[in-house]
Structure formats: C-alpha cells, structure tokens
C-alpha cells in the first residue's frame, strides 16, 4: 500500500532539491533530444552534401567503353528498377566559333537525362537544367562566351556538330571531384553525341555511369555486385561514401565528431542526473533513519521512494521533452536563415521516443543504487555525523556492472560500429578512472596543506567535512568539464585544419609551363606580385648511401621514393612552411650542396639533418646534404615541394616555372585572354568554381558544426551548474553554524567562495589536462590532422569555469546568508 501523504511530503519537504533533480533530469533529456535530433539532421545533411558532390549514389568510371560484363550487369539492375542511371562522356575538344575565327580547348561533358541525380546545375537564367539541355543546344561556362566573344544564341562548332549556346552554367554540383580542368565546361545533351563525331577508337574519353539506387539500404550490395562485374583496374566502381574526394576526410571526421558529442552528452546527462539524485537522497537519509527508528520497514522506503523518484523522473523527462520541442521551435525561428537550406533541425518521433526511453532508463539505473542503499540505512545514523560507507555487497557490484554494460550498449548504439565504440567505452572508462585517481591525489595533497589564514583553513576543511561528498563532486565536475573542453578543442582543431585552409586569398588561377625565357615578360604581363615556382624533375638514386630500388619502392603504401619528384629552388620559406629541424633553410657554414626536405617525405626513410641524398636530374647525379626539415599546413591549398634546393644548385637545370595567384572573378577572362595570346604555350587553369564549391560546403558545415558544438557546450554547462547547485546546497547549511558561532556574512562568503574556488580550479585544471591529452590523441590517431593546443582559449576555459562555479556557489548561498539562523534551526528540529 502506498502512503500518498508520505510521498507528497517527501517531495514538498525538500522542494528545492526535488526541483533541482527534476530540472537536472529535464536538462539531460533536452540535451539528449537536442543533440541526438540535431545530430541526425546534420548527419543527413552531411551525407546529402557528399552525395551532391558526386551527383549520384554509385559512380562508375573508366577510360574505355564499358566491358560487356559490366554493361550487362548495369542493364540487369536497371531492368529490375533497383537503379536509375545516366551515362556521361567527359573529354576535351577544341571548339570553334561559327566563323572559324577563334577556337578554344573546352572540357565537354555529354550527359544523359537524369544527370545530376543529386544537387542542381545552376544556370544563369535560373531555368531547369533538364529543360535547357536538349538536342541541338549547349550550356557553357561563362569563360566560353568571354574568351570567344560570343553571346547566348550564337552557335559553336563542336566536332562535327553546330550547336546553339542556350545558357550559362554558374554552378556544377560535382565540380570538385575533378579539381583541375584545362578548359571551360560545355554541357552537351547525349542526343547530340553521334553528331559530334568525337568519340571513337583513338579518342581520349572518360566514360562515367552515374547511378541512383532505389533503396539506399541496398547501396553497398549493389555496388559490390557491379564491382564483381567490372574489369579490375580499368573500371572503377565507387559510392558517394567511398569515393575519394578532398572533402571525404572532412566528412568522415565531422561524422565522427558528431557521434563523439553524442557520447559526451550521454555522459554529461548521466552525471547530471546522478548528482542531482544523490543530493536529493542524501537529504532524506536523516528522515529515513528517524522513521526506521519508529518502526518503518526497508521495503516501505524502497516502495515509496521508487514512486517518488518515478514521479520526479517522469516529470523531468516530460519537461525535458517539452523543452526539446520548444528548443526546436525556437532554434528554427532563430536560426532559420542562418542554417543551410538542407539542414533542418527537426526532432523526429522516433528520436523523441528514443530519448524518452533513454531518460527513463537513465533515471531508473542511477536511482537504483542510492535506493538500494536506503534499505540498509541504520537508525543509528541520526546520531552519526560521519558518513557511513554503505556495505558494498554483491548486489552493489552487480548494479555497477549493469550500469557499465548499459552505457557500453548505449555507446555502441550511438556509434554503430564495433571498433570505434570500443575505443569510446575504453576512453570514457579511462577518463573516469584517471579523473578519480587525480581527484584522490589532489585531495590528499590538499589535506596535508597547512594554511596560515583561518578563512583558508575553514575553506579547506569544508572540503573534507563529512557528508560533503567532495570526491564525487570533483570527479563528476572534472569528467564533465573534460568532456566539454574536449568538444571545444576538437572543434577548434577541425576548424583550423579544414575550414581555415580555404582562406579567401587562396590562389584560384594557375599558370603552368612558363619557360625560363618567358619569366620576365610573363611577370610584366601578369602585373601583380606572385610566387614563382621553378620545377625541375628528378629522381632519387640513393638515401644515406643506400640505393633506392624503384620497383620495391613503388609497392610501398602511400608515397614512395621511387617516383619522379618535382624539385625546386629558392632561398626562403613559403608562407605556410615552418622549419622543424635545423636553424634555417640552408647552412651557410657548409660547403657541400644542400637540400631542405619536407617532413612527410623525410619520414619515409627516417632522414635527418646531415644525411645525404643522391638525386638524378636529367641524367646527372647530384649528391646533397639535408640542411633542414620543413613542415607545412597539410590541408592548405598552396603549392608545395618536398625538396627545396639553394638557387645556385638547380638554376641551370631544365625547368619550367609555375605560379598561382588570386584574381577577382570578373578580371579572370581578360587576364586569361592576354596571357594565352601572348604566351600560347602557357596553360591557364581556373579553379575558381571548384574552390567556391569547396569553400561553400565547408563554410556551411562548419557553421552547423559550430552551432552544434555551442549547443552541446551550453547544455553541458547547464547540467554542470544544476549538479553543482544540487550538491552545494547541502554544504551551504554550514553557514548557519558559522553564523551561530558569530561569524559575519562576509566571512562565511569568503569561506564558501574559497571552497568553491578550490573545487572549480582543481576540476578545471584536471579537466584541461585530460581534454588536451584526449583531443591530441583523437586529432593525431583518428582525424589525422595536426594538433594545436589553443593555449589562450584553454586558459580562458579554465578561468570561465572557475568564475561560473564561484558564481553558482554564491547564488545558492545567498538565501541562507541573508536568512536568520534560528529559522533554519527551527526547520531542522521539525524534521
């Protein structure tokens, strides 16, 4: 039988604690719903962007017409309706104006209806691409018009056909998949392919087949099926998930980051609920002991407290869900324009159910242990001020094990992959263990301190007062702060590695094959400052006296020393280069010939300063000594060279010169025309469109990720605050005793502030230590990006944490400090 009055009294008696518990649970749920819901939307958006980059689910490429086996497999799949396909023929051709006065090398893309399956080809007229690109009509890049001095409606000779320019293409979704192009784009309808008379034996054509799968779940199976039919090494089958693109690593890393945030949030939510609950129940211990003294049974408490907690937990969950819904509405309103069009912050039904279930289970699991402990609470504890550690029997360990397994399960559910899931679980377990050890260490250290001032002594003693649970607060605080700091640091690092590598001044125009004799004249014609890179081709004969076996080298995974290298000479470092070994690029004190080596290539053969490399440059052997080792921002778009020689070593060798500059889009056609007219041998490559697509996608996603990071950080901070206020509440009562003993409010405030300072600073510093280590590990071994510690931001994090903890401590203590001790004492005796 349930005693309703008892239940109500339990809740109303400690209204504030109950409210904090409900709030804590609600916050945890809002965070879980929000993070999971948003993660799902962002995950979807990321995948959609990856798909748009290729315009299809499955992409098959070959330099030859497709083999019979593959064609049959494709036909079979198309017949069953499992895939829809569109063929593409991509090749260069020299197109001519109708009057034969001007010609231009253009990059033709002959496409079948259906292309692109994802994303849109944006036309200047804003018309639908499929409607414009019909037989007899072509869509051209703006440069085609400007360089041939044509306008819409004019006709162009393409192979054997005369086609009308119907529109101008502004954006091609799958552009970044082929970064460089020697000529501007021209789209042609597949219906005109025969008339072009350009695709024959002896033509160099890229045959591409784009496929859209009917059921995304069958993607991998279908891709495997096609791969089995394809000729190995000749016909390449990839999916939008596996296709290598410059953005793939970015996508992979951010998807991983999303799941990381999910796990951290879970951890934070758990910690939040647990500490709120503990504080609530600790308050009840006295009551329970008294009631036990007057004859209440253990099962009476268990029964009733289960009801109390279920009621509180459920209200927390429901408030949390409502909050989640509200959050979605508010975010939608606030960020509607801010977020990219294809990212919708929609929290779906299943997401809500999942979070609800999660919330209830988390509350239940975390409540079980404290409830179980209540059973064994002895009446004697009324008189004991010491905290009696509850007996840790089999049940205790079973429950702990169940909790661990439950979290492990959740992690696997979140990550949906065995190995990363395992790493996560191990990582989080390690995090908590290390935190516990560190917390213990720091506490012992503090205990030994002999402090001169009374305030300091009291503050320190406060930490070790019975029932103060300093250790568990410290662990909870450190673990959750470590999670938050890590999220922040990882986001900063991802941003630095990927987003910042597309600076607005990244070069967009590349000039290749400038001859040394043209250098001066070219510089004048270009009319702007530019870095010129001389290129000398050479091979490596030997490293440290050991001959390089080209054949064996080429079997090496990744880069190898058996290939031809592009060598250069200059006496200065480039903007994004740093010397990691050695004092300067070259040693003035060496008489020998020298070279500076990039770290990535030095690693292949463990090369160091003073080692010798023998190159062969156009038949001439050249032995040089390594004077320095350089590194560079790896994601940067700037050109780089593995081997840099002093100018006098290579100046005479056969070379071409290459440069890359940033030119404003409107100025490009004129410059391009001037250069190609004056120097017909120089190829100009315009990567503006590609860079723009890259930068757009990266910027958009980084914005979303940043928002998401911020959201999870804010939520995490709120959870931490609620748990601090929950646990600190009890501590504040000490104030009363101080007051009774005649202490002034200022003294009490100082003691509490110092105590909170100890807590805040210790946990923030420990958390920083842990998060720096963790983030470094993740950046190096999972993301494979260089790690930056963000020292100032880190210090700011610590400072902000300390201030926050102080502030929360102060706010929670204000009510008591203002109150008279007698009212509190009276309340005490009533219980």
């Amino acid at each position, binding site marked *: 039988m349930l005693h309703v009055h008892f239940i109500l009294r339990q809740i109303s008696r400690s209204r504030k604690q109950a409210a904090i518990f409900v709030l804590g649970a609600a916050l945890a749920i809002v965070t879980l719903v929000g993070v999971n819901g948003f993660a799902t939307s962002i995950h979807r958006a990321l995948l959609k962007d990856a798909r748009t980059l290729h315009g299809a689910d499955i992409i098959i490429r070959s*330099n030859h017409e497709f083999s019979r086996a593959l064609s049959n497999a494709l036909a079979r799949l198309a017949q069953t309706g499992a895939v829809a396909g569109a063929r593409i023929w991509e090749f*260069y*051709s*020299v197109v*001519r104006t109708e009057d034969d006065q001007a*010609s*231009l*090398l253009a990059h033709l893309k002959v496409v079948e209806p259906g292309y692109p399956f994802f994303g849109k080809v944006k036309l200047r007229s804003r018309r639908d691409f499929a409607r414009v690109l019909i037989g007899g009509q072509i869509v051209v890049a703006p440069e085609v018009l400007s360089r041939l001095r044509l306008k819409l409606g004019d006709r162009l000779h*393409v*192979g*054997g056909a005369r086609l009308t320019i119907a529109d101008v293409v502004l954006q091609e979704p799958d552009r970044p998949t082929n*970064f*460089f192009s*020697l*000529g501007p784009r021209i789209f042609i309808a597949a219906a005109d392919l025969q008339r072009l*008379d*350009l695709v024959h*034996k*002896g*033509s*160099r054509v890229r045959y591409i087949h784009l496929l859209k799968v009917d059921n995304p779940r069958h993607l991998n199976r279908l891709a495997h099926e096609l791969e089995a039919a394809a000729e190995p090494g*000749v016909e390449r089958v990839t999916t939008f998930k596996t296709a*290598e693109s*410059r953005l793939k*690593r970015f996508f992979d890393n951010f998807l991983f980051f999303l799941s990381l945030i999910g796990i951290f949030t879970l951890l934070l939510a758990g910690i939040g609920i647990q500490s709120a609950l503990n504080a609530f129940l600790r308050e009840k211990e006295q009551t329970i002991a008294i009631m036990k003294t007057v004859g209440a049974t253990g099962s009476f408490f268990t029964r009733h407290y289960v009801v109390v907690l279920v009621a509180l937990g459920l209200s927390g969950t429901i408030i949390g869900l409502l909050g989640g819904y509200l959050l979605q509405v508010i975010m939608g309103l606030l960020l509607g324009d801010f977020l990219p069009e294809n990212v919708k912050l929609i929290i779906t039904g299943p997401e809500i159910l999942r979070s609800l279930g999660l919330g209830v289970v988390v509350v239940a699991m975390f409540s079980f242990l404290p409830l179980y402990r209540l059973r064994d609470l002895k009446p004697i504890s009324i008189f004991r001020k010491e905290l009696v550690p509850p007996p840790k029997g089999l049940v205790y360990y079973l429950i702990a094990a169940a909790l661990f397994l439950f979290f492990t399960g959740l992690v696997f559910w979140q990550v949906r992959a065995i190995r990363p899931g395992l790493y996560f679980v191990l990582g989080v377990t390690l995090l908590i263990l290390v935190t516990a050890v560190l917390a213990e260490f720091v506490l012992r250290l503090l205990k030994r301190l002999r402090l001169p001032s009374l305030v300091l002594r009291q503050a320190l003693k406060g930490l070790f007062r019975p029932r103060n649970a300093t250790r568990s607060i410290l662990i909870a605080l450190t673990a959750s702060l470590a999670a938050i700091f890590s999220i922040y640091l990882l986001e900063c690092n991802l941003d630095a590695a990927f987003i910042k590598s597309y600076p607005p001044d990244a070069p967009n125009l*590349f000039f*290749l*094959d400038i*001859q*040394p004799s043209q250098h001066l004249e070219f510089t004048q014609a270009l009319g702007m400052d530019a870095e010129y890179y001389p*290129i000398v*081709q050479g*091979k490596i004969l030997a490293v440290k006296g050991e001959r*390089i076996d*080209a*054949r064996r080298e080429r079997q090496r995974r*990744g880069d190898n020393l*058996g*290939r*031809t*290298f*592009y060598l250069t000479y200059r006496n200065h470092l480039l903007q994004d280069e740093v010397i990691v070994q050695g004092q300067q690029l070259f040693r003035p004190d060496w008489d020998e010939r020298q070279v500076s080596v990039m770290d*990535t*290539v030095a*690693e292949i053969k463990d090369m160091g300063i003073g080692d010798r490399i023998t190159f*062969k440059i*156009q*038949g001439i052997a050249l032995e040089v000594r390594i004077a320095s080792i350089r590194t560079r921002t*790896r*994601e940067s778009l700037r*050109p*780089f060279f*593995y081997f840099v020689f002093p100018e006098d070593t290579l100046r*005479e060798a*056969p070379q*071409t010169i*290459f440069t890359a500059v940033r030119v404003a889009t409107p100025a490009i056609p004129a410059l391009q025309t001037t250069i190609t007219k004056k120097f*017909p*041998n120089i*190829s100009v490559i315009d990567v503006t469109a590609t860079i723009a697509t890259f930068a757009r996608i990266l910027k958009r996603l980084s914005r979303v990720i940043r928002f998401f990071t911020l959201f999870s950080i804010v939520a995490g901070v709120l959870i931490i605050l609620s748990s601090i206020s929950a646990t600190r509440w009890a501590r504040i009562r000490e104030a009363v005793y101080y007051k009774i003993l005649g202490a002034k409010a200022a003294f009490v405030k100082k003691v509490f502030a110092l105590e909170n300072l100890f807590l805040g600073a210790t946990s923030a510093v420990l958390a920083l230590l842990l998060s720096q280590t963790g983030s470094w590990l993740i950046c190096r071994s999972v993301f494979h990006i260089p790690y930056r510690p963000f020292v100032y931001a880190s210090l700011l994090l610590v400072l902000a944490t300390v201030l926050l903890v102080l502030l929360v401590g102060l706010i929670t203590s204000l009510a008591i400090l203002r109150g008279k001790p007698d009212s509190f004492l009276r309340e005490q005796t009533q219980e």
Partner: protein
Amino acid sequence: MNKPAARFAVTVLVLMALFPAGCQQDAGPEIEDHRPLDDGTIVAIGDSLTEGYEVAPEEAYPAELERKLRRQGYSYRVINAGISGETSSGVLSRIQWTLKLKPDIVILVTGANDGLRGIDPQLTATNIDAIVRQLKARNITVIVGGMQMVRNLGKDYTGAFARIYPAVAQKRGVILIPFFLAGVAGNPQLNQADGIHPTAEGYRVIVANIFPYVVEALKEHQAKIKKN
C-alpha cells in the same frame, strides 16, 4: 604519408605534367656512365612516352632500343632524356642542357602534351622546327617521331597537328617516323588503364616499328664519320 595531401601534390604538379610522374632510367652506375659505346650515343628526347610512365626503366623504349641494337650488332648507347609532362616549349628551353650529353643521334618525340592541352599546332610546329634546326646546326642526326592527336579534339585540330611532323621533316631534311605510336595507340592490350601510356609490351611493338628508321639514322651517322 598523408594520402590526400600526396594526391593533391601530385595533382597540382602533374598538371604541369599532364602525364604524371613515371619512372626514368634506373640508377645503375653502368647507365650513369654516359661515355659512348664504340659507335656513338643516341639521345631519346621526349615526354612520358619516352621516359616510360609507370613501366620499369628497362622496359621503356630507349632501353629496349639499345638492347635490340646490340642484338643486331650495333654498339650504340641510348640515353633516356624524357621528361614527363613536357611540351615542345619545354624541350626547346632545355635543348642546350641536353646537348651536354653529346648525342650523335637524337630521336625527338614531343608534342603530345601540346596536343592534350589544346595548344595551337602552329606553336608546336615552330618549336619542333627550332629544336631540329639547333640539332642540325651541331651536325647531329635527327629522327622526328610523328605524333597524332586523340580524336576527341576534333578533325580540324587533329588534322593540323598531324601535318606538323612531315612538314618539319621535309623542311629540315631529317628522318621521320610517320607515327611513333603506330599499332599501339588505341589498343587496350598495349596500353595502360589510362589509355594513352604504352605498357612494356607496347614499347616492344614501338621499338620494332621505329627500328628501320633508327637503322637509317645509324647509317647516316656512320656515313658522316667516314666523311670526316
């Protein structure tokens, strides 16, 4: 090694070199030794088709040619002076450097990269003519390897391109291989997956094709020696 970065490095630089880096002569000291064998030195100047993209150094045509010459009793050394991705402008720029190899005979196979970049055939013709003129001025026997351009560039272009080689050969009175890749171009069995670079087997076919022209050049060279 960071793969995308490596790939990017290759992409950026390869573009100056339409034909990506391949493999050059192997590093043996015997090849480093450029002293002529008894009869003389042949220098094979060209792009990746000469350098031997993605085939072992001893499988590229200059090495194969040297072996075949020896089998036939000619003691000529054949030096591979191919640079991947090089255009005819590049060859013209480095011709003085190449002359340091003191060739008796030069096999000049260049222009493919000009064509693949859509460079005006007129420029390619001027460059090749200038190269041949400089070689001839030093009394070097020249073989010009004729090239044809991929058909997707259009008949006008490929026509103009194909006319370059006979025109120069005729004007300068040098030996012409009508089409260096005859019987190899467009044959998937003799080319790599990229469809333009010959395999080792492809190079054997090439050497068989060009051999008569080389023998013609050897005779011309030996006649010159006798004359002196």
